[in-house]
């Protein structure tokens, strides 16, 4: 089913402005409203949680005087709404505050951890797409045959496995026993700091620097967690592809294509697949967004210093600045991907114009 992934209907246009600026304005307004809401909810959660943010700063041994000083410093004496407005104002100036936990600017932290997640999620999604889509198409074409059943089983296994358990087992087998891949972390210790950091994406940086040994090592580190995440999203992508394809393959225009004497390959890929591309983009965007936010457990197990782990650890340490910052980033990406797939939809589907 595709309904749940349908791009969000964006706010109604005002009556006055001409068409496309109005559309743009509406989209921007929607993003703004959504993000503001996101900020508000996160902020409220941060304040409602019955954990003392001051304690997170000063730790177990502090005296009451130190406590009071930090209380004032964090602006906790001000009314909630004012605190929120101050926060929004800061965020608008690109200032997410300082992380209590790492002692660094949250924006710096995110600049560091986000590329790690981005790299992992991107590779994971690519794996998911390159295996999941053909698998889904095959399953649909050979509906109810053993291929379909196999694809279903493979997909559902991916959907059902506890990812943290598979992570540990994968690590044990492929790293511990077989030694096919490198272990936890993003890069072997000897390779650290060799290639200059440009994008923060190690694979890309290594390519830019033309350093193959670093590239190989980084790839060997990422391949296992990425495959796991890929497998997880593969499940979702292939199930969705299958149901989209089934819908298209039963459409009348497919028979038309067959009547023309087209080969099966053309019928499936040129005709049916063309029609699901756009739905598929939405699904892939969603899967991608899910990997960006949802790989916390994988990150922990593979010691992957990514944003999921960052936010979770921060949350457990009640480091709300980091949590808010990370959430805003992930939320924005989510909204961004949503809008991107919406735009793609408008751009590619001749019917949407």
């Amino acid at each position, binding site marked *: 089913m595709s309904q749940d992934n349908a791009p969000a209907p964006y706010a109604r246009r005002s009556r006055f402005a001409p068409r496309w600026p109005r559309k743009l304005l509406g989209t921007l307004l929607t993003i703004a409203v959504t993000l503001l809401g996101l900020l508000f909810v996160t902020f409220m959660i941060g304040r409602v949680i*019955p*954990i*003392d943010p001051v*304690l*997170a700063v*000063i*730790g*177990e*041994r*502090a*005296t*009451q*005087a*130190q*406590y009071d*000083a930090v209380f004032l410093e964090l602006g906790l004496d001000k009314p909630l709404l004012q605190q929120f407005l101050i926060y929004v104002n800061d965020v608008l100036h690109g200032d997410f505050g300082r*992380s*209590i*936990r*790492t*002692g*660094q600017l949250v924006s710096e*932290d995110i600049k*560091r*951890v986000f590329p790690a997640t981005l790299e992992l999620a991107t590779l994971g999604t690519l794996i998911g797409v390159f295996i999941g889509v053909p698998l889904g198409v095959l399953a649909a074409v050979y509906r109810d045959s053993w291929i379909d059943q196999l694809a279903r089983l493979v997909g559902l296994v991916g959907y059902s496995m506890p990812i943290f358990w598979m992570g*540990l087992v994968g*690590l*044990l087998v492929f*790293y*511990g026993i077989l*030694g096919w891949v*490198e*272990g*936890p*972390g*993003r890069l*072997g*210790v*000897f390779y*650290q*700091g060799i290639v200059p950091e440009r994008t923060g994406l190690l694979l890309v940086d290594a390519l830019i620097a033309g350093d193959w040994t670093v590239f190989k090592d980084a790839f060997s580190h990422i391949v296992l967690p990425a495959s796991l995440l890929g497998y997880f999203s593969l499940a979702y992508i292939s199930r969705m592809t299958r149901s989209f394809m089934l819908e298209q393959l039963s459409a009348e225009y497919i028979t038309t294509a067959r009547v023309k004497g087209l080969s099966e390959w053309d019928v499936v890929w040129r005709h049916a697949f063309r029609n699901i591309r756009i739905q598929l983009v939405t699904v892939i965007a969603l899967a991608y967004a899910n990997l960006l936010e949802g790989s916390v457990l994988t990150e*922990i*197990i*593979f*010691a992957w*210093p990514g944003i999921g*782990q*960052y936010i979770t*650890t921060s949350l*457990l*340490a*009640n480091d709300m600045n980091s949590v808010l910052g990370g959430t805003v980033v992930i939320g924005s990406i989510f909204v961004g991907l949503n809008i991107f797939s919406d735009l793609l939809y408008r751009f590619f589907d001749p019917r949407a114009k």
Partner: protein
Amino acid sequence: ETPPNMLVIANRIDDIKTFDPAESFEFAGADVSRNVYEKLVNFDPLDLDAGFQPELAESWEVSEDGTTITFTMAEGHVFASGNPVTAQDAAFSLQRAVKLDKTPSFILTQFGFTPDNAEETIKAVDDKTLVITLDQKYAVSFVLNCLAATIGGIVDMATVMENETDGDMGSAWLRTNTAGSGPYKVVDWKPDESVLMDLNPNYGGDKPAMERVIVQHIQESATQRLQLERGDIDIARNLSPEDIASVKETDGLKVVDELKGRLMYWSANQKKDMLSDPKVLEALKWSVDYQGMADSFLNGQYTVHQAFLPLTFLGALTEKPFTYDMDKARAALAESDHPDCGPIVISVRDAQDRIDIAQSLQNTWGQLGCDVTLTVGTGAQTLDRYRAREHDIYLGAWGPDYPDPNTNAGTFAVNPDNSDESGNTGYLAWRNAWDIPEMTQEALAAVVENDTDTRAGMYIDLQKTHQQVSPFGIMFQQIEQHAMQDSVENFISGGATTAASYWVVTK
């Protein structure tokens, strides 16, 4: 395989917030600090039992009245920047810690230093002489032990002040940068990921064998072990007992045990009627399977210990009066006012070893007839409740803040004002609402006793009473088990008194 001049360690280091010695108060931070900053006095990693030794200060003199200590600075210590270490640097560093008044500052301020008087009380007379004035007489060992703590690290005044912003005395810069005279300097720190240290080219001591040290943050024990087995790391510091057991069996790997200062204890809130009944407390203390836990899931990582001073500390009490004895426990409970034992809630934070201990307590106390439930929360959550004195039983761990017996005596056995208003959250006795005016006096008396043996005796007596009457059920002392490649020698994580030292390691 790791290169011969490089040490790779897997450890949980996500608690590092800063490297600034005036602020740093975490285990992983202390490890870094010890290798980067030198102190006036310090511990020799190869002979920790010898106690503090001269380092930046080559000698010191105590005035007649015991309130003034004059240090003479040693030659040949140079900061990584190339600046020599002077008394001005030392004075600046200590004043700075007092003035910044961050969490660990109490270690210094307990001697009467305040942000206002710091410039007078801590003073560099010349490049070589530092004079410290205390508000009263203290045991010299107490003072010097405190100066050997992380907060006693001496920073490079010139470099730090160059990087000052908004009058913060360089504290923003020192979070992520180091300016010390120790064997190493931090080259790169990626929070939750790794710390990279290289040699300090100006280090005055012998050139360490390890020219580069990398500490990687690896959360999972299984992951650390796999890395060790594959030779990707030299040392794994957080292996579970089961993983340790297997490493012991593996060729080419070895395990080194080191007693740490961390205690595992439970404590009962004295505001709760039933839990303030001494007989109930006694019953609870008898019905803990100390040895069973130490031999099973805590195997090798904790040793049974029942006094508030950890072994290897001055005056540590080795007696372990309580065993797992259900008969005695039942008898004690029967004598109490609560023979049926009411509901008990154990607050425990979300760490697996603590949850395991809590489950064992739940099991054995359950056999007494108590209805025990657990609430697991994040560290901050449980601590919050503890500080607000809302818990029933808190299952916690306590590590000494500085290498002097007062660190634990001052919190387990001191409670100057038990009122809610006083908010004396720094004292564990207060957190458990345990009102002990006499014991407080006794503990404070030990602080000023300058004769070391007498002082030790005072602490032993204090602990003996404490063991029997306190609402604290101290159960275990931590043993850190480091698993490492056979070739690694001299890795010492600092025992109960200090942190890890990398500069003596060879392989």
